[in-house]
Structures are given as C-alpha cells and as structure tokens.
C-alpha cells in the first residue's frame, strides 16, 4: 500500500532562477535552515548538518536508528524548511515498485495510457522504514536515486532537480525487515543515526510537544530557486589536489585495513569529496579543507564498509558502533596533506 502525502507548495523566493549565490550567502542560508530544523529537533545539530550537507551535495541520506528518536521528524523538518516539493512514502512489505515510481493508467477519455507519477517525483522524498519493503521495491527506489529518472512503458521521465531521498530505517536486527544489501547502501551518500536525546533535551521536548507537534508551525526559510543556487554554488567549491589525494588515501586505507572485509568504493570517494564541498560551503568557505573530509568520513564511509567477523567478535559494544570506530581510527592515522610547492 502506498501513501503519498501531499506535495507542499513553495512560498516566495528571494533568488531568481539561475542566479548564483556568494559562498557567504550559502553559509548563512544553511545556518538558517539548520536553525529552523533545530526548533523541532533539539540537540541534534550534527545530524541536521549532515542531512543538509547531503541535500546540498545532491546525494541521498539514510537515517538509521531505533524507532522513536525523530528520524522521520528530521526528514520532515528538513523538507519543510526548504520550500521544495516533498513526498513521503511509508514502506511496507506489500509495497510495489509502481507504488513508488508511478503507474500507467488507461484514460478512458483520451483512450490512451497515461503515466500517473508516483511519489518519487518530488524534490525531497522521505522513504520511511525503507528496510520494511521487499527487495524488489527497494531496488525500484534505488534505481531512481541513482539515475534520477523513471522509465515506465518505454518512456523515460526525468526527475526534477534537486532530488534527494531521505530514507529512514530501523537497525537490521529488528523484526520484519529486509536489510539493504551492501550494493544498495552504497547509493546513499551518507548515513547518520540520531541517537537518544540528552535528558535535558528530552525534558524540553516533553514540554513543547505535550499538546501539539511543533512541526506544524515550521515554515520554509529557503525557496527552491535559492536551494538550486546553493547547490550550484557548492558545485563550484574548489577542491585542491592535496585534499583529493587525502580522500583517495582514506578510501585506499579502508580497502587495506585488516578489520574490514569490504572497503570504500570509488563512488564513496567521489561522494566524500562532493559532501566535503557542501560542508565547506555551509561553513562559508570556497575551498575544501581536510577538516571537511574528516568531518564527513564517518557519515559518508561507515555504511559502506563491512567489518570482518573477527573484528566484530572482538569489538566492545559499549564504545559505539564498530565501523564508526574503525573509520575514526583510519582518519586519525592518515597523514593530513600539507601540499607542496607544486600547484595543480
């Protein structure tokens, strides 16, 4: 069963279509979005920033955590803060691929088959509990994510830019789930987890949400054209040769690491750099620092890596997820590039 929630209309925009934004504007607008989302989800600035980074880098985000910590809330709040079309798909085991992409319906009046666009035709697609859907349906979504188009009955329909899927999933050990295969996890630019709020944040939440959900009061702070301009500005962020080498070196190290069975793919390296550019832009910088790469290494790389069973066996669960620890260790050990006199 599919449930398409209404696409939300955009409000007035400050930026004309095709206009460019200065890097400082990108930073300030990004800060405004983060601040806006924060009014709904307190104490999760890092997760919010990562999510926005993915949106600006035109990637797809996977939010993974136990139920009830605000995964969907984050996705929805992000969507509401940006004046873009948003749709929400609640994944269930009986959801069909056409429920996602759309279906051709015979129009009695025109006596033609007419393509009914599915919920995937939106700027921001919230895929709730994606691991509850059958693999077949998952694949349909993932193909849309990768190719940014839908093909039905021999016709190809392009998806509007920007297009970002924010999928949430419960940890795989939960009942009734189909874990995403490695190959499909790789299509998400980043995976974040929310984590439990602090006691103070949880108390504050009780106070604000006792009667109503504040998300209903959330308004967009950035228009669609503005968002496109931001994305365009991100694409123009400069990445120096040393930083590229650094990203490659990180990826290469994951492939050789003794604790990892599967390392980062070249796609991972590419997405790491893209995300780093967005991260830099959000901080008002027109060039990428190794710090940007470092900050995104765990969200961008961790969900693609598979630890060896030996490493899993010896891992102390209290010290957080094993794979995050491995990525942090690799980042901590890889020398930061200092560049050379030779410029590239």
């Amino acid at each position, binding site marked *: 069963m599919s449930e398409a929630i209404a696409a939300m209309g955009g409000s007035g925009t400050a930026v004309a279509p095709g206009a460019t934004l200065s890097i400082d504007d990108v930073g300030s607008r990004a800060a405004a979005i983060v601040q806006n989302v924060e009014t709904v989800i307190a104490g999760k600035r890092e997760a919010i920033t990562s999510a926005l980074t993915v949106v600006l880098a035109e990637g797809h985000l996977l939010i993974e955590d136990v139920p009830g910590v605000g995964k969907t809330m984050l996705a929805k709040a992000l969507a509401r803060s940006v004046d873009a079309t948003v749709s929400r798909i609640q994944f269930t085991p009986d959801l069909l691929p056409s429920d996602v992409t759309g279906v051709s319906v015979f129009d009695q009046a025109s006596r033609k088959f007419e393509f009914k666009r599915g919920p995937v035709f939106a700027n921001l697609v919230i895929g709730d509990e994606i691991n509850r859907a059958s693999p077949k349906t998952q694949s349909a979504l993932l193909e849309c994510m990768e190719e940014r188009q839908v093909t039905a009955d021999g016709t190809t329909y392009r998806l509007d830019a920007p297009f970002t899927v924010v999928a949430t999933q419960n940890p795989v050990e939960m009942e009734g789930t189909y874990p995403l295969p490695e190959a499909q996890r790789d299509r998400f630019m980043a995976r974040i987890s929310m984590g439990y709020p602090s006691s103070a944040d949880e108390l504050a939440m009780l106070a604000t949400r006792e009667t109503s959900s504040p998300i209903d009061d959330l308004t967009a702070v950035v228009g669609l054209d503005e968002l496109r301009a931001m994305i365009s500005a991100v694409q123009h962020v*400069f990445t*120096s040769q*040393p*930083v590229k080498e650094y990203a490659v070196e990180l990826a290469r190290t994951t492939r*050789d690491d003794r604790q990892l069975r599967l390392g980062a793919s070249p796609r991972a390296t590419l997405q790491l750099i893209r995300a780093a550019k967005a991260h830099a832009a959000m901080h008002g910088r*027109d*060039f*990428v*620092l*190794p*710090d940007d790469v*470092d900050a995104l290494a765990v969200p961008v790389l961790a969900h693609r890596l598979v630890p060896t069973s030996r490493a899993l066996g010896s891992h102390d669960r209290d010290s957080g997820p094993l794979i995050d620890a491995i990525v942090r260790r690799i*980042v*901590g*050990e*890889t*020398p*930061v*590039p*200092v*560049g050379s*006199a030779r*410029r590239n």
Partner: protein
Amino acid sequence: MRPDTIALSRGQRLALTAASFALIAVASMALGPLISGSGWWWMCAFIAAGTLFGGAGLRAIRTPASLVPVLELVILVLLLTLLFGGTTSFALIVPTTGTFTEFGELLGGAERTIQQQSVPAIPVPALTFALALGVGVLAVCIDILVQTVRMPALAAAPALVPILIPGFIIEAGAEAPTLVLAAAAYLLLLRVDVRVRRRARIMAGDEGDDAATVISPARVPIASTLGATLGLAGAGLVVAAVLAASTPSISTSLLLGTGNPSTIFGRGVSPFIDLGRDLRRPDPSPAFHYFSPDGERPYFTLLTLDRFEGATWGVTDTAIDGDNTVDAMPRPEGLSSEVRADEHPIDVTIDEVRTTWLPVPYPTTRVDGLRGSWFWEDGSLAVRGIDADTAGQRYQANWLEVDPTPAQLRAADRRVSDEFTRFLALPDDLPQVISDTAAQVTGTAATPYDAAVAIQAFLRSPDFEYSTEAPVEDGYDGGGFDVIAQFLESRAGYCVHFASTMAVLAREVGIPARISVGYTQGSPSQERVGGLQRIEVDSHDLHAWPELYFEGVGWVPFEPTPGRGLVPDYSRPGAGEGAGPPIPQSGSAAPSASGRAAADPGGGITGTGGGLALADSWWLRGGVIALLAAAVLLAPAALRAGQRASRLRRIARGERPADAAWSELTATARDLGVDVGIADTPRAVASRIADREGFAADEAGAALIVLRDAVERERYGPALRTGVPDADLIGALETARAALADDERAVDRIRAVLIPRSLVDRAQAAFSERLSPGT
C-alpha cells in the same frame, strides 16, 4: 603589538647587561681550581665588563642592533691591546700589525704553557691573554643571546663552557660554591629578563606602535639565530679546546690529532724550549721514590738528546723495535769487559710523574714489574711505553754502576768509529766564541778524556754561576748556539746551559757527546725498609747532563753544573794520577750544603706538579668525549634554530610563506609539549593551541587565526597566495610563539630549546616512512 618588538629602555638594557656580566664573571670563576692566584680573574672580569658595558653604551646611542656584536668584538680587541699589546700599540689601545703578531705569539705561548704546565697553572701573560680572549668572546656570545636575539635562556650555553672545563681536567671539576653562584647568576639573568619583558609589555600599551629602536626579532633570527647557535658552539669548542689543555695531561696537538704521542715533550721539540721563563716553581712535587742500599744512588735518565741543530737539541725519532723488550736489555755500547761494572737492583715506585718515558739509570740491564708494553731504544737505552705511562707504576730494575779508571778513559781511541760520528755533528755556522773557548780550554789536553775533564773543570770554575734567574731574555731557556754563546759571555745559567755547552764543546774537540735528561739521584729519607733506604726524587731533581763517549768504556756521564748532582770520580781533575781518595757517592758529596740539590729550573723542562706529565690518553679521551658530548648536546638546538631560520627566510622570500609560518608554529608548539600529530589538520592543531592560557588574550588568539586561515588558504585554497602580507605572517608568528612560550616554566622552555621534540617527530616520521612499504 608583539611583545618582543617593544623597545627596551636604556635602564632595562643596562639591567640585562649587568646580569649578563654577573653570569660570565661568576662562570669564569669556575676556572679557579686550574689557575693559581686570582689576578687572571680580575683581568677576565675587566675584559668582560668592558665588552658588555661597551655594548650597552653602543645600544644607548642607538647603534644598529646587528652592528653591536661586531663593535663589541672591536672593543675586545682594543682592551686586549691595552692590556697585552705592550709597546706595539699606537696610543695604548690602537692595535698595529705588530700587536697582532704579538697576539699570535701570546697564543702560541699559551698553547705551549698549556702543554707544559700542570694544575694549578701559573698565569703567565700568554695564558692570561688566552683566558681574557676566551672570556671576552663568551661575553659577546652571551650579549648576542640576551640582547640581540632576546633568548636569555640560551645564555646558559656559553656560560657552561668555563664551568665544564675543570671537569675535563681535574677529577673534582668545578667547585660547588662556584656552581651554585653560577646557577644563581643565571636565574638572576632570567629574572631580570622576565621583569624587563613584563614592564616593556605594560609600557607598550601606552606607547603603541612607536617602537623606533626595536630590534625586531622577526628579522634578527633569520641572520643570527643559526649563526649565534653555531658560532656559540664553535667558540665554545675552541675555547674549551684551548683551556681544556691547560694541563700537561692534555696536549692541544694531540687534541687536534697531530703530533707524536711517543715524544716526551710533545711535537718533538727540544725539551729545552721555554723552560725557565714559564716555570720556576716554588714547591716541588714528588716524582718517584726508590729503595736502594746506601750509596747506590744513580741518576735516572728519561731520554737522551742526541741531535743538535743549532737552535735546539732534539731526539732522533726512531721507530720502536718490538724485539727490544725491557726484560732483557743489551750491554751498553762500547763497554768493554775490562771496565768495572757492578750490577745493582733497585726498586722504583712512581709517585706523581706522568710520562711515557721511564726513569731508569743508565745503563740498565733489565726492568720487571711494569704494566703495559715498554721497549728500550737502541743506543740510549731509554725506556719508552707505547700503551701505558708511568702513572702508578712500580718496577724493579738492574743497573750497572760503571766505574772506569782514568787510565781506561785516557786509553780510549781518539778516532771515532763511523756509527758515532753523528754525535760529533755541529752546524756550520758555529759562533766563533764557541770554537775559541774550546781551543782555549782544551789547548793542553793530551787526550779526549783530558779535554773532557778540562771542559768540566772550566764550567765548574768559580767564573760560572749557577742561576735560574740569570736567563732573562727570551729564548735563553734553550740549549741552542746563541744561548751557549751568550752563556759563555754572561757565565750564568742552569743545568740546561751547562750541559749543552759541555756537549757542544766536547763535539767541537772531537768527542762524541749527547745530553741526558732525567733526574738526579734524589734525597734519602729517614725511612728504611729491610735494610734498604727510601730515597725521594721530586720535581726539583729534574736535570740535564752531558754524556761523552769513549771507545772501550762507552757513554760516560759528566757533571758540569755547579751545585747540582754528583761529580763522578773519574771526571775530577787530577784523578788521572790516581792519588785522590775515592769520594763516596753520597748525598754529602753534593756541593749543596743542604744535602740536596738546589732547585733547578730544569724542572721546568716539563712542568712541575705532576713532573713530566705528558699527553695522557685518558684525559685526552675524556676531554674529547666531553667536548663531543657538548657538541651533540647542542646539535638539536642548532638544527632547530637552522630550521627556524630557513622557514623565516621562506616567509621573507614568499615561498609558501603561510606553510612555513604554520610549520614553525606547530614545531614550536610541539617543542613545548603540545600534542601535534601528522594526522592533525591545521584547524585541529589551532583549536588545541587556542585552549592554552596564553591564547586567552585576543591578540594571541587573533594571531593564531590569521596563521591558521593563511595556511589553509595557501595549502588547500584556489588562489596561489594567502592574501596575508608576509610581514603580518611574521608578526603573527612571533606573537603566537611568544604566547606559546609564556605558558611554560623557564625549565620547560630551556628543554624545548635543547631537546626540540619536533625534530624527534620528524626523525621518527622519516624512519617509519622508510619502514612501511606502502607509502
């Protein structure tokens, strides 16, 4: 506003200068145990004061900072000219070429006296000059560190030079009170510096940027930090090399790897050189003692001088023959069986003399009980150690008391066999007075023996006066021609003159002659052990005497020096007639009324105290090792300073300046113990540094951000340049470095300078890179 660029007031500079002076003055006190008296110290203190306060005066009149050290050196030369230039100077303080010649001679003299003298050394002018020069140079070094580069903590390095030297030379090292005083002076300097800095910083708030006389450390270190450190190490080594040798134990020539360690007096020069002038020692020190039955008191030969070259007497350098072991020594040359020769045992224990030549009577037939390898030399039978010296030796020797009759001597063949003609060699330009005297004295002698007796009698006549003071003019302490001619005129001198004159006169009349250097028979003590008398020989018993060769008898000693030693029976005038009663060979026979020989500056041949103290490998090794250790100790600081200078140059050249500035900042932070790894981004390092107290101040924090942003932009940014002017980078770097250092205790700052951790990290990184194949 960078704290280091703040102009110091004259008063503040003067306070620093006074503290520097206190440091060097106290530090040079540490040399006290090595040098007798205190006059030298006043001289050094005067020189240091003149140099340092002269520098302070120059700064007061706003002399460019880089010129001050140079002008201080000029002041040093002027002061040295005033004190040591003598008549060569112009208007007392202006040096002329003659002055520098004089200085050169003084340095040469210092080197010689350092070789010859033992501890405590008499501060002869040459030695005082070397000390004053060394202290003056160290004072300039300290001044550069304290005032020019404003790193007073480093002043410890030059101050350590005089403090360390005694440790190389005497076991006790510098005296504890001196060390305490020196430490106090150093702390005083640091204290004054801290106060000055603090005051200057407060003042800077009012004065703003009006810092006209600033010695900008941003520029100075480029030229002078490396130079200062290296120059410091170099000067320290030179001074240490010169001063460390102020004992006979260490010879400069050996230190420098030249010279012949087997030659007694170093460098193979005649032992006669420079004797009396330097060393007329008031107190003798025991050389050795021996046990022998009454009456058997031989002379002890150390070595024999056989080569006369006009200017000096010298030893023919012969290679040691490995077969010539001392357990079986040959019968002496020319001694026939008809001559009476009684063998006597003797038991010698060395007290303080230290040499590679063994004191043994001539001729000796065997020596037992020696440690190390000792060999006798052909002809002279002098015994030489190749891997040991006399220190702590006790040995038994058998020696021959050769007692020829005048008849046997008189019967000796006048013709000299070929192998002995070299003992007749005389230079062609023999002064007339020598040949005249020879002819005159031996005119009536029928045989060589009679001629020899006549020469001895001539020299022992009342016309000749024994005097250690008579030789007043330079060079008179030698045994060369001119000296002999002069001696024949003035008729006053000591054993060196008498012996060499007799030897030359004997050669002139055709008798092979050589000179033995060693000890006279010594003086008996009251102690008797098992019927043997203990006889003490001390440094005043050092002596030189001629030996003449007679065919059939061999080498026969004579004693031309009045008042010294024993006159052999056979050499007395009229002994040939056989009528004279035998004169007992005992102490009472010596002309000296006291029963012991008068002090003979022959003792000065080799210095006193330790007696013939020679280049000793143990001390030498210790000194060299200590110097090397000091150099190794300072090497990291020098390397680090070089690295800093090169980075500052890079900033100045604009060659990735931000990278250079950042590298320098992180290296400084690392030196001071901040955790900085290769996997840390500039941002991470900056946030770590910013947590330190010193960066709570806006100025330091802002400088840090400037540096961080510059390096990020330069390394990873799209533009080629940082957009920050180089001067601002240098300023920010200095501010940040000062803030880093501010948080640390003085001891940590010193450790950071001496043991820069950043270098260790670099070395480790290089090492691990080589080990890991992947990278």
